[in-house]
């Protein structure tokens, strides 16, 4: 960070904690940035002339006579077309040996969109993955996380979705990425020849955790630039939001705030909502879609982080290993895309909603049959059929390595329904059964 001349230098720090320092200073604004001994810091509390600064990279080695310079503004990012194809750190500074970005300088974490100016999301995002397109259809302007245990291949799935999604721009916000994952993203984007569409803001496990707090705002500020100024459809990938929330709790803990559930700050909901709500369909045609990752611990979605996330996002995509087929699937029970209603059956074939629901209902029957089996009971003929159906359904539709278009997904589903069930067991509108299931409804059951 550069400083300009005539800035006042303070050299008398009164208090130092693990994350903050305090000093007396005049004319300082809330959330203003400062540099303390070369490290970036931000004003988090003002009490008269006593200013408390949070130092992003920690206070190790800061001394009472360290130099403090206030910058007179909150964190900023320089935005222009030059952001494309570049990699930055949490402060928005290049980490790819490229030049500084020349562009308009804007404050990150800017204002919210007036709800009456939003447009209703309406463009389907096809990913080729049936667990998504068929059961949990995504729409531009949506915000949705993958819920996954840390051993699931969430970053791979996310990268795949990003590449197939046909977005104009992709912004990657990496928080606490391992260096390997960082390189994975870099390679996969490079190999796909799409680097010029991608901008990345990365904080790796080697960087101080509190710095992560800036990543989503940096990424979303870049996204807003492309979506608002250039009317682009922008896809923002945020991984891993659990590590972001952990950083929030570190800060609030160090500032002696009263924690609420799971040692998370009481403001977790608002903190996360502020970011996710940046997902929007603009009236001028641009859009911001957010796909995030929230890692779970032991599949526990009642933990405050996934719980609050679920209350904010428009659904969630649950990754789970299906031991019957030995593949990772998108779990049809816990996964949900809330905006799918806006496109299924209208932008897709009219039988889509009902085929989707019937299949999942029958898949649930298989889960019950499985419980029966585990409890040592005999299975009925129906149970047997639903188990067979479920296995095929997992293999041919839920597995994440599927890549087909939506009509093919629907035909596959009909195929499986017809193979295993009678018309009344399928239980959907007769016209649809006749038209798309190609079955006679009054056939002998």
């Amino acid at each position, binding site marked *: 960070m550069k400083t300009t001349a005539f800035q006042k230098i303070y050299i008398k720090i009164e208090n130092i904690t693990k994350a903050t320092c305090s000093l007396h200073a005049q*004319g*300082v*604004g*809330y*959330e203003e940035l400062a540099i303390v001994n070369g490290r970036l810091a931000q004003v*988090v*509390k*003002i009490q*008269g002339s006593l200013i408390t600064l949070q130092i992003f990279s920690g206070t190790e080695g800061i001394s009472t006579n360290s130099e403090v310079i206030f910058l007179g503004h*909150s964190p900023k990012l320089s935005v222009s077309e030059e952001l494309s194809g570049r990699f930055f750190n949490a402060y928005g500074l290049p980490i790819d040996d490229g030049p500084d970005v020349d562009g308009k300088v804007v*404050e990150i974490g*800017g*204002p*919210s*969109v*007036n*709800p*009456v*100016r*939003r*447009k*209703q*999301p309406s463009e389907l995002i096809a990913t080729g993955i049936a667990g998504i397109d068929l059961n949990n259809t995504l729409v531009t302007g*949506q915000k949705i996380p993958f819920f996954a245990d840390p051993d699931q291949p969430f970053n791979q799935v996310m990268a795949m979705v990003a590449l197939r999604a046909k977005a104009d721009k992709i912004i990657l916000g990496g928080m606490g990425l391992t260096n390997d994952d960082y390189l994975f993203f870099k390679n996969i984007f490079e190999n796909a020849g799409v680097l010029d569409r991608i901008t990345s803001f990365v904080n790796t496990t080697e960087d101080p955790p509190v710095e992560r707090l800036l990543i989503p705002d940096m990424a979303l500020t870049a996204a807003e630039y492309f979506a608002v100024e250039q009317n682009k459809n922008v896809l923002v990938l945020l991984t891993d939001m659990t590590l972001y929330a952990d950083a929030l709790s570190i800060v609030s803990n160090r500032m002696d705030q*009263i*924690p*609420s*559930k799971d040692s998370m700050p*009481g*403001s977790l*909901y*608002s903190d996360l*909502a502020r970011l996710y*709500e*940046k*997902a929007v369909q603009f009236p001028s045609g641009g859009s911001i879609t957010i796909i995030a990752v929230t890692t779970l611990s032991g599949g526990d979605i*009642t*933990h*405050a982080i996934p*719980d609050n996330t*679920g*209350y*904010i996002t*428009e*659904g*969630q995509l649950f990754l789970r290993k299906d031991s019957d087929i030995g593949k990772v699937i998108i779990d049809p*029970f816990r996964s949900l895309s*809330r905006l799918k209603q806006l496109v299924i059956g209208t932008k897709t074939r009219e039988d889509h*909603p009902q085929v989707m*629901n019937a299949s999942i*209902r029958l898949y*649930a029957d298989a889960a019950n049959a499985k419980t*029966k089996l585990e*409890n040592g009971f005999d299975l*009925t003929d129906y149970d047997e059929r639903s188990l067979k159906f479920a296995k095929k359904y997992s293999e041919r539709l839920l597995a994440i390595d599927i890549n087909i278009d939506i009509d093919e997904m629907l035909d596959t589903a009909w195929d499986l329904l017809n193979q295993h069930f009678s018309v*009344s*067991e399928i*239980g959907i*509108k007769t016209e649809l059964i006749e038209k798309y299931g190609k079955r006679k409804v009054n056939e002998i*059951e």
Partner: protein
Amino acid sequence: MNTKGKVAGVIANLVTVEVNGPVSQNEICYIKMSDVKLMAEVIRINGKNTYVQVFESTRGLKPGTEVDFTGHMLEATLGPGILSKNYDGLQHDLDKMDGVFLKKGDYTPALEDDKRWEFKPIAKIGDTVIAASWLGEVKEKWMPHKIMVPFKFKGSYTVKSIVEQGEYKINDTIAVLVDTENNEVSVSMVQKWPVKIPIKAYEKKPRPFKLMETGIRVIDSLIPIVEGGTGFIPGPFGTGKTVLQHSLSKQADADMIVVAACGERANEVVEIFAEFPELDDPRTGRKLMERTTIIANTSNMPVAAREASVYTAMTIAEYYRSMGLKILLLADSTSRWAQALREMSNRMEELPGPDAFPMDLPAIVSNFYARAGFVYLNNGKTGSVTFIGTVSPAGGNLKEPVTESTKKAARCFYALSQDRADSKRYPAIEAVDSYSKYLEYPEFQEYIKESISTDWVENILSAKNILVKGREAYEQINILGDDGVPLDYHQAFWKSELIDFIILQQDAFDDIDSSTSIERQQYMMNKVLDVYNTNFKFETFEEVNPYFKRIINVFKQMNYSEYKLEQFSKFENELQDIIQEKLMIVE
């Protein structure tokens, strides 16, 4: 001279102000930053330090900034023009704001000062009037909007003069009143009211007793709510709280719907913005938006205004209730409001209660719910505010402070279950555990007997009972195995499934199924109970499941068909045939 002050400290949106004069709790003030004024509310006073919560981001705020106090609390502006508006939590008109992004301090007026309204006097010179007496009315879209004596007026007044029928602006004087001491006051068509104080300008508030039709079967036919009643919908995320509220807002039999989108998703409000101007209100043929007012303080809008938003919405509802109207107030989600209180309480370092919520949360919640109700106005007319709030329990666990506080305050409990939502049994209301206290009110039972039928309440109890028995049978089957239980258990289970699939489950996105008239509900309930009371002959348990699936399937087709039209009757006949197949012939 109003009190002034200077900013002395800032922590997020909690600002300490040193003041030079008197201030009162909940007083509104404006912080005068160089380019904008930020609205704030006093939440604690401690010597010369006054703590205010700012309804905006405080980024860039510096100590020493000047603050102007207004001398009044947060007030709603009440007058013609509220209907169909989209407001933020502080009643600023969102449509009047410029640009795509919200700007700090862009405080647009709630009503239009220069719009002319056709006013018709109701009161006459010499009439004695009190607060909320109807002086006249204007036509607000289709609604006879009553112009009332301001609620703040105390004691009785005599009408000295009142304008003739004609066009007036909201600030024009439409009447002059004289109090008992001969002081004259002029009254216009607009008044202000502090949102945190209930409007009590009515004669009495009896226990509510009239069924409020919602078109949602599981509600009307099993867990009914009443005009002026209270209810809440707790449920883990994604279980259908918002969809249920949207259904209520589309279908409920009310004159006006006030929707408070409180700390939830902006896209959900956009759905209302997009759909309501297009959708017809089946009862009146008008567009739904013509009976709706939206208070949108979505999760990315300032947290402090979230708390205000529910009070603003309630005040608007109470205002229209005073005109003799039936209002349905919906708030999604009251947990976000409680969280806003928690954030503030933590910043002020108050001693926390359970889960770090403020200690007085139960009192705050119950005071709010108590503002709903069915009332007799002073002129003998009736009006009501029915309130249904959603609750978003942390971790889906109902043993948390907001759910528990609300359970004490609300009379209907619509618990959404994760299991039901997971298996797409929507609406996911767990009918056995949920309840409506109104079912126990003799006045409600009486009303139902007279206005609907003598067996409605009885049917509700039978249906609930069948569900309980079905659940028990299901548990036994799971423990003992399909062939380890008598055949009856299978029947009991499947008969309860019939109620589940045909009465409880309802497709909110199907044009026909989404809303069911009371008549149709009654018809279907009787039909389902007939099947329940039929003795079927089965040889083995394996016949039970496929047989009932067929019955359920045909019943479902009926639900998807236009009531009593050709398709419907066709399926009804089909049903009859299926039933004949297994009818036990009693010799």
